[in-house]
């Protein structure tokens, strides 16, 4: 009774895992929310002016940076996002010419961070933004381990309420009908905001019109199952620091197969283990029975032996006793005979 309750509880947990969208297996393919937004970055237009960085800093009310945004010397070293810098522009040297590339959260269609988070602090919104809720976050930083683009950052020096930090795609501004800060301030039109579908069309159109200017690939169209930020470039994406070996499998599919084993384990293990136990018990019982049998036989044999021994002993005692009596009788008879003989001879002497 109790055991079934326990196992029932566990099966419930397993079912909960099974029912989750990630564990549902690879039969579906999520194409992103219809009409969701994104940003297209065109590296051929970017001049590395850092205006987007400055806008991001202002919009998100971040602390002042040690190096002012009009100082372009920082472009000489590679930088990444930080807890107070949601976006950075890096300079790459491609065939002797500088190419600039902006980094920020790519707002994946099926985000690794959301799939990894064990409290559901990340959510892919219908606007296209992947939002983070600090009110749920436990601070395990598994989202950072999971993100293939190395985007989420952490407030390591906050002892009590550290947050994961990353670009929000300016979700609140989008909801108000305004542009993301970086897009608004880009002086060169290197950033275009719009519906993801439209952005893909624009990108395709540019590549088709200027095959000599662009390589024929829209980064983010299918990478990791697709992202809301899209990139086109004249230089290979690898040469501007973007990984081309990520594949097109959405992050949740990487673990869903293994996670779907959970209900099977929960379902089958108890049966298997109880079976093993029952088998052991049965073996033990048979063993015990056999042992009991053997003991009984042994006891019977011992008893038989003992009684036989007793009998022999008694017989022997009997025999000994008889012999003793016989001996005594014989002796008595002999004595009597001797006495008689003596008596017979004595009167003859007196006569």
């Amino acid at each position: 009774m109790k055991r079934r309750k326990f196992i029932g509880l566990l099966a419930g947990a397993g079912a909960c895992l099974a029912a989750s969208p990630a564990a549902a297996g690879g039969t579906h393919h999520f194409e992103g929310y219809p009409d969701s937004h994104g940003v297209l970055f065109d590296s051929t237009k970017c001049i590395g002016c850092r205006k987007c960085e400055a806008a991001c800093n202002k919009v998100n009310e971040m602390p002042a940076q040690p190096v002012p945004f009009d100082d372009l010397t920082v472009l000489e070293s590679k930088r990444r996002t930080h807890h107070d810098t949601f976006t950075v522009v890096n300079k790459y040297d491609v065939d002797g010419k500088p190419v600039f590339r902006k980094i920020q959260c790519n707002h994946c269609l099926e985000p690794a961070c959301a799939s990894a988070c064990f409290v559901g602090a990340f959510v892919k919104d219908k606007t296209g933004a992947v939002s983070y809720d600090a009110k749920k976050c436990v601070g395990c930083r598994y989202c950072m381990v999971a993100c293939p683009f190395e985007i989420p950052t952490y407030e390591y020096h906050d002892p009590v309420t550290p947050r994961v930090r990353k670009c929000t795609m300016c979700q609140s501004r989008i909801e108000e009908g305004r542009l993301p800060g970086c897009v608004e301030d880009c002086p060169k039109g290197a950033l275009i905001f719009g519906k993801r579908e439209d952005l893909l069309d624009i990108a395709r159109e540019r590549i088709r019109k200027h095959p000599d200017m662009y390589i024929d690939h829209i980064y983010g169209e299918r990478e990791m199952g697709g992202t809301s930020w899209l990139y086109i470039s004249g230089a290979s994406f690898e040469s501007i620091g973007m990984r081309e070996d990520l594949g097109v499998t959405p992050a949740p599919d990487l673990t869903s197969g293994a996670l779907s084993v959970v209900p099977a384990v929960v379902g089958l293990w108890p049966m298997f283990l109880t079976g093993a136990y029952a088998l052991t018990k049965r073996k033990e019982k048979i063993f015990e029975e056999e042992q009991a049998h053997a003991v009984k036989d042994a006891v019977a044999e011992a008893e038989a032996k003992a009684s036989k021994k007793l009998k022999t002993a008694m017989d022997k005692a009997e025999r000994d006793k008889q012999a003793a009596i016989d001996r005594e009788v014989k002796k008595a008879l002999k004595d009597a005979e001797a006495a008689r003989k003596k008596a017979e001879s004595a009167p003859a002497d007196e006569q």
Partner: protein
Amino acid sequence: MSHHTTTPKSFWTPANIITAVILVVGIALTVKRFTMGIGSVTNLSDDNPWGIWIGFDLLCGVALAAGGYTTSAAVYLFGMKKYHSAVRPAITTAFLGYAFVVFALLYDLGRYYRLPYPLTIYPGPTSFLFEVGLCVALYLTVLAIEFSPAVWEALRWKKIRHLAHSLTLLLTIFGVILSTLHQSSLGGLYMIAPSKLHPLWYSPYLALFFFVSSIPAGLSMVIFEGGLSHKFLHHKMDEAHIAQAPEVTLGFAKAASVVLFAYFNLKWIGVALGNSWSHLFTGWGAWFLVEVIGFVLVPCLMYAMAAREKNGKLAFWASIVTVAGIVLNRLNVSLVAFNWQLPAEARYIPSLEEIMITVFIVTLEITVLRFCLSKLPILHEHPEFKGAH
């Protein structure tokens, strides 16, 4: 402790002095961690969010505490009664192991006070970490109940001891299920990051690898600790424990040898499936071979030989190699081969303070374990509960 024979001076043995120093430093660093943030004591960064607190304290801690479920399953489910004396020490180590894993986790979690969140208000069941959390929480409870009879016996609370003891079979089954799940989930954690983990270590079978290797890890820890307590706690052991020890060692050695061999083969299937053969001829490949041959195949053969020749000493040495191998594997997956593509200056190397906190937690655990082994009926039967298991 007898009050008549111990003088205050004898307490300050070199071992105890070192322990005391570690504890003092550890407490100071604990204060620093919780007042100035994780960043004040660790070398963690945005590229390396998980360091040795996860790689060693969590991953190795859980793997090496696997002796609890392997031993109790062997004895209670698979009827290996002759290993019975090994159960209590194994359960004790497992219970303390898990308790300290959770304790160590509090250091690593940014908002440690929300530890129950995933299991209560905001479950995130798409995450392997959710499964780890759920199973570890449940299993810690199971272990606490399984461990408790030793305490009840020491307190002579017969009724509650009887109740706890009557749950043994149920708890054992439950424990095996939970262990299967979370041992494998720890490997599963890394399955979401194929682009970060070196192909020789990344595999869709990572979860299976972690589960299978946890079995020899657990068995080896039982052998290892058995060997140690034989040496240092002999006087605490009763006859049954002393008499059964060689058999436990050799029986477990045989089992460990078999499972290590299976694991060795699985690792190669992993390489074949990922078609990572070309990586074998790089520096990473050499390191991989060190792990798989030096710390899986070699102890496997050592165990096999020990079992055949009834050589307990060899089994003891094999257990050390196996344990080292499991630690090596967990560190490889979580730290060494993780982020292998990052430039050297962006790679993670633990800070001294970070290591000191780990040393502190391990020391604390050993201190509590020593206390339990010497004060509770674990290596011997309680006189009033003889044969009551």
